């Protein structure tokens, strides 16, 4: 009985694969579907905006046949995204780009997509699933850049708070590992507090207001983009403002530009343009190019000097993103294959 079912399953799977892969062999322009888990925060909105711009252009340029963006309802719910993905699978797109709600929960569904012969690329996350390509930022680099900046900003010694990201998410764990490693290398920097702020400015503000009075002098806040709320909390409490890591949103950059945040602060975040990078990467895979399973793209870093240039290009409630083009992605992919990611040229600061 069981074998019979398995046989039917395989038969069905191969049938659908054959059906779908026929046009692939003919190297027709692919149809693209983007599945996004939710739209509730500025990062995801910036990601979608960047993607829609780039995909519209790619469609006009004849790189893709059509594209569809789908945001699951609810608050970053894995089950809603599974339902959404399954509805998308019925459309049998050639390329499926996924910004997942959970690093593992979508695996059975994504496996089904792979079985149907769809090119699946997951971005802004990771997954163990072998058949899926991963396009992501190096969260380790993000943590290294922002932590090192804060440590340098406080002159290599003093008290710091660690504001941690989304509890239980793989990026957070990777970043925390890098942070603790860097702190070990700087024994003069003392950690006086450690909270989960979910990289969210308002949450960081509340967490800090609740504890600040019980903390000694704080020179720096090591975190992942909650600088705005952290600085505001210190201002409310009438304390000296620490060195922080801002999010590269228009609002935070302006706030920073107005002289808030101790000198040496920085703005770093993973790039909302990853969706675009994933699009061009997946097009290359679809066209038969050999691409490593995991490709790393650089996070967005805004330094003191480039800040004003970025402010002009980013809306208040938007996160700065790299504007990837096919050439830039190709260069980045080559750097990934050659192992020279660290030296690869960054895209130019966008101009609006």
């Amino acid at each position: 009985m069981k074998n019979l079912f398995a046989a039917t399953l395989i038969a069905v799977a191969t049938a659908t694969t054959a059906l779908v892969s026929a046009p692939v062999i003919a190297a027709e322009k692919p149809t693209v579907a983007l599945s996004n888990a939710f739209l509730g925060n500025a990062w995801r909105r910036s990601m979608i905006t960047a993607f829609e711009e780039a995909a519209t252009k790619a469609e006009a340029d004849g790189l893709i046949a059509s594209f569809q963006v789908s945001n699951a309802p609810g608050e970053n719910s894995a089950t809603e995204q599974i339902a959404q993905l399954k509805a998308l699978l019925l459309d049998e797109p050639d390329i499926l780009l996924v910004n997942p709600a959970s690093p593992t929960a979508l695996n059975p569904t994504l496996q089904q997509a792979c079985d149907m012969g769809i090119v699946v690329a997951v971005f802004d996350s990771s997954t163990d699933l072998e058949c899926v390509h991963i396009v992501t930022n190096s969260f380790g680099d993000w943590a290294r850049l922002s932590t090192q900046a804060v440590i340098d900003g406080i002159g290599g010694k003093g008290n710091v708070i660690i504001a941690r990201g989304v509890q239980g998410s793989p990026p957070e764990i990777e970043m925390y590992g890098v942070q603790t490693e860097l702190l070990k290398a700087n024994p003069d920097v003392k950690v006086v507090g450690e909270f989960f702020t979910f990289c969210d400015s308002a949450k960081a503000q509340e967490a800090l207001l609740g504890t600040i009075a019980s903390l000694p002098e704080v020179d720096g806040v090591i975190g992942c983009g909650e600088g705005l709320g952290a600085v505001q909390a210190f201002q409310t409490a009438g304390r000296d403002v620490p060195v922080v890591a801002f999010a590269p949103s228009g609002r935070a950059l302006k706030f920073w530009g107005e002289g808030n945040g101790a000198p040496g602060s920085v703005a770093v975040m993973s790039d909302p343009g990853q969706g675009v990078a994933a699009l061009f990467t997946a097009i290359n895979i679809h066209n038969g190019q050999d691409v490593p399973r995991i490709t790393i793209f650089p996070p967005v870093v805004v330094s003191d000097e480039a800040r004003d240039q970025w402010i002009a290009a980013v809306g208040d409630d938007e996160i700065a993103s790299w504007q990837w083009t096919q050439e830039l992605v190709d260069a980045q992919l080559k750097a990934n294959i050659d192992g020279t990611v660290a030296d690869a040229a960054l895209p130019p600061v966008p101009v609006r």
Partner: protein
Amino acid sequence: MIKVRNHAIPPWTWSFLAAVVVLVLTYIVSGRGGSQTITLAFTVAPYLVLVGLGQMLVMSAGPGNIDVSVAKVFSLGGLIAIAVGDVTGSWILGLGAAVGAGFAMASISVIAILYVRIPPIVATLATSLIASAISLTLAKGFQGSPDPMLKGFLNWAPLGIPAFAIMVLLFTLLVSVFLKRTIWGSQMLAVGQARRAAEYAGVNAKKTMVFVYLTCGVLAALAGALRASFSAPNVELGNDYLLDSIAVVVIGGTLMTGGRAVPAGVWGGALFFILLDGLLNLIGWSYAGQNVLKGFLVLAVLFLASGAPILGQRASPDPAKDEDVAEPEVKPLS
């Protein structure tokens, strides 16, 4: 209404007691803090108190009444206030626009509850979805920053006493007087205790419902507008305020079954929650441990603060159940 109470201890005692215990623990753990811990708690608490007061009015209007849209209306109020304030250059107009938005959102709930006769939890859930759609649309290409003057006021704490907290305290007092001393207030609680009986006594229950939901919506939007002015507007700004507002109201001693509103308890509950979060962060417990402890503490406060005596039989079934008996729609038991 309030006199029916059979204890000598006022119902808000437990929440304040819990807050004080947490405060003392905070001092013991950190060995520092002084009065600033309290000052900062009072800086953050008013927003939650405003939402909580609205939620309290809704909950005390009878069993099943709850507003689950406060979180999204809160965020919407914040976005609208900042956007309008930025365009017009006046934070007063901004706050006015937020109040208007809260009123409009609550009107949807009211129409759905009274005229489409949808149960409040589902009606306000639908409102919450609509508010969230508007917020998302607004957030796209959003421009604007909080007014510096209003922000300055919200941060202003002469002699360590936050001025805004004093305003909200006065407002709480006003609500308290309204509930205890005015006919409207007593009618509202009468509806909460036994809607049918109140209606026979000539109280317009519909009017009460309209009043409590509109007030709740307006307060949530206003709190959101102020909270956004305090830091920055954000689609997710209100997310934590739904569960927290319900929790602080009940911990404060308001009966979920309606008919007893305890405005002072909302302050106690809010301070307890805020201080507890601070303490848990301070101890550096894992997030998992924090949640387990928070859950058990809420259950423990409930265990102590609930109406029934700790030992002995439950005197009579809930008022809620009494009302069910009065409801003609209850089918015979098969």
